[in-house]
């Protein structure tokens, strides 16, 4: 049982305990602890890739798919921590606990990804959520931060309750919490029986809760407030790692235990997806706050992912995977840039703070330009290909009207991305923006990837096809 196959999680768990202890003794040398954590993550990611698991704990899945996703998460965390360290350091708010809590949350995401039973899933989600509650409230001096934290806490706990209620229903009507057994059970249930209805109810509860975690409309309501209230470094974490994890949870839940219910959840997901796209686009239109705007943009992006997933086809699955990875890339870049730009020693708050950035910091201006255009889905950037794949999947499944609606929303959403570009490039107001570095190689690579992968989209396409193929291997 204690084989080394769940090494990344174990490494991180044990390592983080060590860091907590070590940190107590070398309180002043924060950089050392930080390096230690980064080293841990690198080690874990190394093992995540190299160790090909041979067999599995019944409620914990190991596969190429999960290892790859974990690897991506770890790399993401590495980058995020890199930004975070410098950002917090600059804001004089650096505590090594921030990283330890983050790492625990990271473990939570990994558990979610590997979870093969509802209990494990619940624990993973909670580990992540608890970490996020703390991280959001981390900026103790800020009213907004604590307000956001308490909001997220109450709503998050409520959604946990809903999740649990759903789980209990599923457990009650199938007699198991193991994905595989649930799947078997559901496939043998009569479509018209009461039991079936109960399972559907349970599934809806779970869906609602997961959509909440995902930030999909109409369960998105917390997203903008929380994005705005928390530190940028928390926002960047919040908008990337949990999304990927929840996405994988979605995939695994819907494509393993609930696959026979696809005819029901596909409609729900499509509805939720469209609602997210519409709400994300429309609400974002008049936002003044940068993080808030990006939050709505995230909602709309999540909508694309869910929509593609709701198609229950190979190309839909492919598209959603593609979109998720691209979205994470883009979010990493956009928030990453914001961590580097500060105004009056605070993080960038309003879009108008960015006015004239192109004159004072052309490097960052170009980065934002590319990132925003990619988010808007303008070719040849990678964001375009992501949207293209989703729309193509929609059309291949004859959802023409929906696809028209979706592209119209894309046009609307393009407006607010353009507004940012407009502020940066076309306005010459004086600003007090300062940056603590002239450039950042990681950030540059990240942004160049948005362009490069857009010109060579087949790289990304091959990766996702591979991921999808190994995912399908497992689920069927």
């Amino acid at each position: 049982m204690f084989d080394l196959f769940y090494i990344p999680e174990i490494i991180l768990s044990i390592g983080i305990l060590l860091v907590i202890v070590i940190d107590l003794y070398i309180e002043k040398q924060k950089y050392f602890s930080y390096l230690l954590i980064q080293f841990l993550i690198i080690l874990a990611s190394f093992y995540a890739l190299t160790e090909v698991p041979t067999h599995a704990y019944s409620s914990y899945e190991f596969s190429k798919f999960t290892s790859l996703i974990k690897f991506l998460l770890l790399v993401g965390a590495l980058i995020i921590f890199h930004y975070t360290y410098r950002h917090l350091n600059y804001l004089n708010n650096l505590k090594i606990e921030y990283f330890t809590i983050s790492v625990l949350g990271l473990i939570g995401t990994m558990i979610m990804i590997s979870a093969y039973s509802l209990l494990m899933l619940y624990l993973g989600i909670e580990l992540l959520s608890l970490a996020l509650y703390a991280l959001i409230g981390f900026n103790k001096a800020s009213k907004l931060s604590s307000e956001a934290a308490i909001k997220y806490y109450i709503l998050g706990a409520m959604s946990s309750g809903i999740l649990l209620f759903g789980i209990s229903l599923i457990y009650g009507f199938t007699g198991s919490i193991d994905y595989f057994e649930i799947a078997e059970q559901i496939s043998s249930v009569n479509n018209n029986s009461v039991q079936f209805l109960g399972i559907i109810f349970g599934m809806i509860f779970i869906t609602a809760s997961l959509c909440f975690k995902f930030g999909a409309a109409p369960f998105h309501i917390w997203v903008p407030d929380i994005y705005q209230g928390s530190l940028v470094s928390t926002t960047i974490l919040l908008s990337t790692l949990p999304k990927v994890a929840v996405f994988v949870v979605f995939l695994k839940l819907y494509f393993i235990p609930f696959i026979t219910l696809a005819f029901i959840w596909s409609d729900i997901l499509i509805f939720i997806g469209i609602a997210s796209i519409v709400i994300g686009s429309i609400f974002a239109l008049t936002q003044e706050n940068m993080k808030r705007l990006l939050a709505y943009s995230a909602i709309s992006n999540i909508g694309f992912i869910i929509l593609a997933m709701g198609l229950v086809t190979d190309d839909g699955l492919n598209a959603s995977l593609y979109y998720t990875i691209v979205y994470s890339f883009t979010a990493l870049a956009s928030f990453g840039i914001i961590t580097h730009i500060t105004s009056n020693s605070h993080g960038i708050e309003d879009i108008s703070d960015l006015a004239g950035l192109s004159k004072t910091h052309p490097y960052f201006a170009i980065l934002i330009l590319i990132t925003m255009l990619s988010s808007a889905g303008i070719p040849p950037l990678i964001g375009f290909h992501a949207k293209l794949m989703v729309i193509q999947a929609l059309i291949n499944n004859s959802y023409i009207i929906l696809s028209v609606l979706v592209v119209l929303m894309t046009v609307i959403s393009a407006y607010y991305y353009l507004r940012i570009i407009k502020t940066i490039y076309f306005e010459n107001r004086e600003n007090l923006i300062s940056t603590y570095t002239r450039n950042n190689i990681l950030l540059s690579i990240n942004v160049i990837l948005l362009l490069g992968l857009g010109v060579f989209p087949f790289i990304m396409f091959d990766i996702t096809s591979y991921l999808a193929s190994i995912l399908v291997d497992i689920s069927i």
Partner: protein
Amino acid sequence: MNIELITFIIFSSLLIFTSIKVITSSNPVLSAINLVFSFFLSAVLWLLLGAEFLSIILILVYVGAVMVLFLFVVMMLDINIAKKNAAYIKYLPLGIGIFIVFNILIILFFINTFENINYNAISSINIISESNTENLGFVLFTDYILEFEIAGLILLLGILSAIILTYRKNPNNKYQDPARQIDVRKKDRLKVIKGLKE
């Protein structure tokens, strides 16, 4: 009508009553006390369901620790007793409405009958002894060992977060910052003033 049913009816109606009190009472202390009552009542009902260990845990952990924590916070924060304001009344019908809709949706469904459910493939049920605690302990440390470990992580996280969130240096404490002492330059301290010649 057997004794079990009577117990159930009494305790469950009490439970509902205390629950309503929890959410409606204007004084948070009262709410907390009612919540404690609810936990007690639940523990009894859980006993009826044969979950002895959990009912003990509920009382020990919840009433003993969590609810005390709640009360502690109530005291610490020195919160005024809230008045029932107009908004409360305004939203009450909505609350009742949702309450009813939700209940109709689910309760009707439950009433419909929960019997005759056909479970095809239930995995093995690990019952090794009569004792609920022993059984629980067994599965916890065999089948659910990984989850158990994770629960440990969660608790660690809880501790860590609670500390990091609430801990603050007392601003009244006077202490020296050695780094700043070392960093001092002469010109920061010494200011040469050219005086007027007398």
